[in-house]
């Protein structure tokens, strides 16, 4: 792949590649913008959800997905955890000179598949090619819009004492998968990323537990990161049951070796849900009935914040407790 203004043929090739993959309707494809009819949006709810995210990952392709599926799922999931039904995405690419065209094709095809499965269209986009070294392979930025039905009021500030905390499956799969896929850590295990769009799962959950308070996808910082934010935002204390945290044995193994904790590892198809105690059972059943929630678990409870403010505490098998704090930057040893 070459960059610059000269390569008209290349330009065309890339445009075709994207157009074909994302199968935008021919007449809008000629315009400088995607045009979305308002009427169906208005019929679907009373608020528009709008989000954007950039994706950088090494390696570009890994078991369970690639940078493209991450970009599509990440943005869809950012929409659906607000209760929105995703409508359309944009995708902007920065490609490094020298990137294999075949690789790009695979990534783009996977994006298209993923969007199609999630029932979302990729309606607009852009590509830039930069000199080798200016960028590492490929970066993607996706933005998305969705519609929030009028009866939904899901918020990170809405958790209340007495609620329970659910997660839709095993922790840290994506983070562990990336560490293994890098290939330079001699980790001889195959772990697939959990990368998946969570729209269907959220709809099933909200049908079963209409009073769901909070939803968050547990990406960077892991479930621990999300819960720290949630406790702070809702001004509550969370207690997690360590024995209830679902973790794949192979992820546990990787964590053991590297000295990491699955609770802090990134996920790309996991959400944390806070639901009222009364709907806990229905919510859990709904999650487990969905293909993306078979290993869903109730991992903790919400209580009044202590006299000294919100906190997240993990209770272990012996009844011991420790406070979860997010490291300020790179983890520094804390043991004296």
């Amino acid at each position, binding site marked *: 792949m070459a960059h610059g203004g000269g390569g008209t043929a290349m330009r065309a090739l890339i445009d075709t590649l994207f157009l074909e993959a994302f199968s935008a309707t021919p007449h809008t494809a000629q315009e400088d913008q995607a045009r979305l009819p308002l009427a169906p949006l208005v019929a679907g709810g009373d608020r528009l959800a709008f989000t954007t995210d950039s994706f950088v990952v090494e390696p570009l392709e890994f078991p369970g997905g690639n940078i493209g599926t991450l970009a599509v799922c990440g943005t869809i999931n950012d929409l659906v955890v607000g209760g929105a039904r995703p409508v359309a995405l944009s995708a902007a690419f920065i490609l490094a000179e020298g990137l294999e065209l075949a690789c790009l094709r695979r990534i783009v095809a996977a994006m298209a598949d993923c969007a199609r499965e999630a029932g979302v269209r990729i309606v607009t986009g852009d590509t830039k090619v930069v000199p080798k070294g200016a960028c590492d392979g490929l970066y993607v930025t996706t933005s998305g819009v969705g519609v929030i039905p009028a009866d939904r009021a899901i918020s990170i500030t809405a958790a209340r004492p007495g609620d329970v905390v659910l997660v839709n499956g095993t922790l840290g799969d994506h983070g562990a998968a990336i*560490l293994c896929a890098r290939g*330079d*850590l*001699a*980790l001889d295990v195959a772990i697939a990323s959990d990368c998946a769009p969570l729209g269907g799962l959220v709809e099933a959950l909200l049908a079963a537990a209409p009073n769901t308070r909070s939803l968050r996808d547990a990406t960077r910082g892991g479930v621990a990161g999300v819960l720290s934010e949630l406790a702070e935002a809702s001004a509550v204390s969370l207690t997690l049951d360590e024995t209830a945290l679902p973790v794949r044995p192979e992820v546990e193994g990787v964590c*053991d*070796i*590297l*000295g*990491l904790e699955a609770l802090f590892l990134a996920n790309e198809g996991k959400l944390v849900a806070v639901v009222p105690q009364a709907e806990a059972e229905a919510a859990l059943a709904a999650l487990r009935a969905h293909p993306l929630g078979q290993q869903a678990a109730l991992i903790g409870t919400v209580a009044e914040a*202590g*006299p*000294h403010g919100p906190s997240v*505490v993990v209770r*272990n098998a*012996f*009844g*011991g*407790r*420790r*406070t979860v*704090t997010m*490291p*300020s*930057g*790179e*983890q*520094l*040893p*804390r*043991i*004296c």
Partner: protein
Amino acid sequence: MRATERMTVTGSVQGVGFRPFVWRTAHALCIAGEVRNRGDHVEILATGTQAQRDSLAEALRRGPRHARVENVTRTPEALLFTGAFTIATSEAGALQSGIVPDLALCPACHTEIRTPSSRRWRYALTCCADCGPRFSIVTGFPYDRANTTMAPFTLCAACRADYENPADRRFHAEPVACPTCGPRLRYTGPATPGEDPLDSAASLLRAGGILAIKGTGGYHLACLATDTTAIATLRARKHRPTKPLAVMVADTAAACAFAAPNAAELHLLQQASAPIVTVRATPALPANLAPGLDRIGLMLAYTPLHALLIEQVGQPLVMTSGNRSGAPQAIEDETALRDLAGIADGWLYHDRRIARRLDDSVCAMIAGQSMTLRRGRGLAPRRLPLPAGFETLPPVLALGGDLKAAFCLTQNGQALLSHHLGDLPAEGVENTARQALADYQTLFGLTPALVAVDAHPDYISHRLGTALSQQRGLPLHPIWHHHAHIAACMAEHGLAADTAPVIGLALDGTGLGPDGTAWGCEALLCDYRTAHHAGRLARTPMPGADRAAREPWRMLLAHLDTALGPDATTHALALGLLPALHNRPLDTLRAMMRKGVNAPPCSSAGRLFDAMAALLDIASERLTHEGEAAMRLEALARQAPALRETLPKSLTDSGPDEPTNGQPDGQPDGRAHSHPGRRPDSPTDSPTAANTTLPHAATLPAPVPGMVFGLACTPDGVWELDPAPLWAAALAAKGRGVPACTLAAGFHAALAAGLTDLVMNLLPPQAPCPPGFTQPLLRTVVLGGGVMANDLLVSALVARLEAVGLRVLRPAFAPPGDGGLALGQAVITAARARMETR
């Protein structure tokens, strides 16, 4: 000729029966006048002859048993008193410093509870002005009965008479009680109906059961210390597989029968603080008391309840903190009954509430001097007078570290170092710390103007301090960990606020250094304000970060690979020399170290000890408590045969004999408290030939040829100890079949020698005024960090440093580890403020 003098007495003079002491003395001397408490001192107006007044002044300088008199001033007064000497009422608010540490049972009370004719016969909650609970029952200010947990108990007529009689040893002892009016003993658990609680508890223990017992500062879990099965049960139920358990004995005779304390250790045991003292274990002890160690923590029965129980059981008892794994020690009856339900078989308690949790204090004789390893019951809230120059500095609140947390408040030239609060990441400890902070500020009336924290941004204490400084609008001072370790020791040894720089050796696990790496074996040229990084152990990655601090084999791999290269390590592995590395994911760990994935560089001494313990196959798979591998390594080194054979038998049989007395190097707790029971054959207060600060030859490790550290100056001007030659020699010697204990001893010797060489390179004339300082370096080496609790290392180090004419200062009042950090943070911050205000 009769005249009047005003005498003021300062020091630790309140809550210790000072006024009755003055009253009795004055009566005995036929002096007229009065005594009263005034703020932080006691004032006496005395009318009498010159000789009478001189005698009184002399007595004042001595004070009653638990007082620590700092100064007595005498000024003439015009008025003349006649008639009997009286105790004047204290002015309101005058008892601000009247809160003193809890005191162990005194001989008089002990005799009384064993005297059937006494109305306090077998009364488990008796006390007097010389003994009993103090800080553990205080609920408010000022210190009088209404502001203690004794408030609900109204004195009976007999007790009131005792309380009001200046000639009685119970005069103004706030917690005075008797079976009629005081708290009662209770027992919950298997028992014969109608049985006395003490009898039920004793039967339970004798049958091998586990008893939860309410002590002064919290609940303990007790079982027979001679019963391996009972100990194993306790360990299993508490999920505490290896951490050494403390043992309580009736008296010093029982201590000597059970273990092998030396004279100095017996002396420490008898302090009024009744600390746990680590002493030599004997082979006869159950092995699961302190697995892998040759030391055992002993304490004497320090409350009437403990004394009565142990007497009845007739055997030493394990006394470990009464808590669920990870949770703080229970202090409330309901908590103990609920939380200890899966652990204890019975509960022995009473209805005197514990106002605050105070863990047992821990002390040890380290290279011939006493050292406080944990400041808790009996030591807190004793203050440390700060050196010259700190009197007028702004008050500082320092938050300390995260493990062995304790905070420190400085004001008016004194430092108030809080009691041991526990590890902040553990359940409930952060809350405990916040409550204790509020508690201390109310009780002691301190209002900080500056807040100091450890510089590590992820320490809970750092976040706590940051929030506090924001709430109150106070400046925040982040202090580097190892500078704080050294400054703490400087302060307790009286180095003035504007002291010339010293050489600090800070050895611990890890703390964050200003270069962003994990420090832990550092030489600093420092005064209070500035620290110049002058030396360190060569850095090694910690593959797995905190995980590497728990799994010593990781550090063994890291050290060997760094020192000798992966090929040499692999070769040694193939020769079967490294069982600790068998079946480990070595490739991954090596990749982590190469790529810098969760493998931060450290210069930690603690991790070096871990690695050596792993090489010598004594480190457990996963450490369950701090310093575990290092303690085992030290114990192993003490077995080195070469060492024993070269010494006369009498030397190897007793350790250091006598602590040096008084400030600043003295015992943490002032004078001895003559404890109930038979005294040891050699009286503790008669110094022996070995009364010297030089440690005993018996504790010095023998060098092993070739086991040495390299020493070189790095391009950034830091002297670096390189352990590569040490590892090469140790590995080779292991291959030749040199016993592990010899290598462990050689390691200690090598580290002491290496540190000494490093210090020698920092001495003038090369750099008379170190960079950044205006005064020449003092020939003084200040030790700090948790590794300084290693008797073997410190003995060797002190001997070497003193042999070359250097003065060595080591922690005594404050723990050498992170329990003392707050003191260092506070004095650094105060000294810096002093610079700014000039």
